[in-house]
């Protein structure tokens, strides 16, 4: 049982009122559901090694289930979520994290879509500018020479 849990229990015990056994049970239940919530959180940040598109939380594979038990036990023993995740990284490698850390070459994964989007926007801007030029725009109207040339081609060439 962790320190905070013990303090909480001691506090409730000293309060009196409802039976201390009930209070203890309440505290234990509250702590357990807290632990389960934290386990779910950590599990949803880890990749299932078997079904690699799914998180450990979402995967129904047996290994994912056993990883969840493992996560639960480590959190119960007092480890922090970061420590548990670091443990898995030390065993499987960084790919076990669903969100690659923002470091080194991984930055390409994070930044490339943003710059591609920006670049696409620039290209689109220039393209639209060209396409949406109004019919009255003198700069794109055919020149007189051009019109004359077109006119001369309307009649078939005579041999």
């Amino acid at each position, binding site marked *: 049982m962790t320190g905070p849990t013990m303090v909480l229990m001691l506090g409730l015990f000293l309060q009196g009122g409802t039976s201390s056994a009930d209070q203890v049970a309440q505290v234990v239940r509250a702590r357990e559901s807290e632990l389960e919530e934290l386990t779910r959180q950590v599990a949803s940040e880890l990749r299932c090694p078997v079904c690699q598109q799914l998180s450990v939380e979402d995967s129904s594979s047996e290994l994912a289930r056993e990883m969840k038990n493992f996560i639960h036990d480590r959190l119960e023993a007092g480890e922090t979520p970061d420590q548990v995740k670091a443990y898995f990284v030390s065993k499987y490698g960084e*790919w076990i994290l669903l969100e690659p850390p923002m470091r080194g070459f991984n930055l390409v994964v994070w930044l490339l879509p943003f710059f591609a989007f920006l670049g696409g926007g620039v290209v689109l801007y220039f393209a639209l500018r060209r396409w949406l030029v109004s019919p009255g725009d003198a700069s794109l109207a055919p020149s007189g020479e051009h019109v004359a040339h077109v006119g001369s081609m309307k009649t078939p060439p005579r041999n």
Partner: protein
Amino acid sequence: MTWSRTLSLVAVLSLVALLGFGLTLDPSAIPSPLVGSEAPEFRLPPLEGGDSVGLSDFRGEGVVLNFWASWCLACIQEHPALVRAWETYRDEGVELIGVIYQDTPAGARRYLERYGGGWLQLLDSGSRTAIDYGVYGVPETFFIDRQGLVSHKHLGPVTDELMTREIDKLMVQAPAAPGGTP
């Protein structure tokens, strides 16, 4: 060609080159962070009963740790190579140990009766040892040297060539000093 056309072409070709390079990579060939580090300790019950066995029981010997399961087809495929390696190296200071992964003892026994092999088999129910070794499928085989460091990890079925090559590396090191084993 205009400047903007050249730029687009360069951009497209670079992207194609990058993607093409990606296709040559093998996604299953992720290097294990364990290689070069101390092999994680374990303490597991043998399939045939008796006291639990730990990796430290074999300090001073080379260890080949093979994770397998009776439902795994690639394990059946590699099994003859394991049998041959075991017969060749069993008296040469190299210990072959099987770790049974997500399986039942009955299933494992049936498999061994059918396909043979007499080396030590350990049960890893709960997959704690598998998680400790970063295992995510079977078969996976770890080659551990005499100092207890992971020398190589192999994903998928082993071959005779691989076994010979990796076990020879384990044997190249000088054995531990006579009084040194725990």
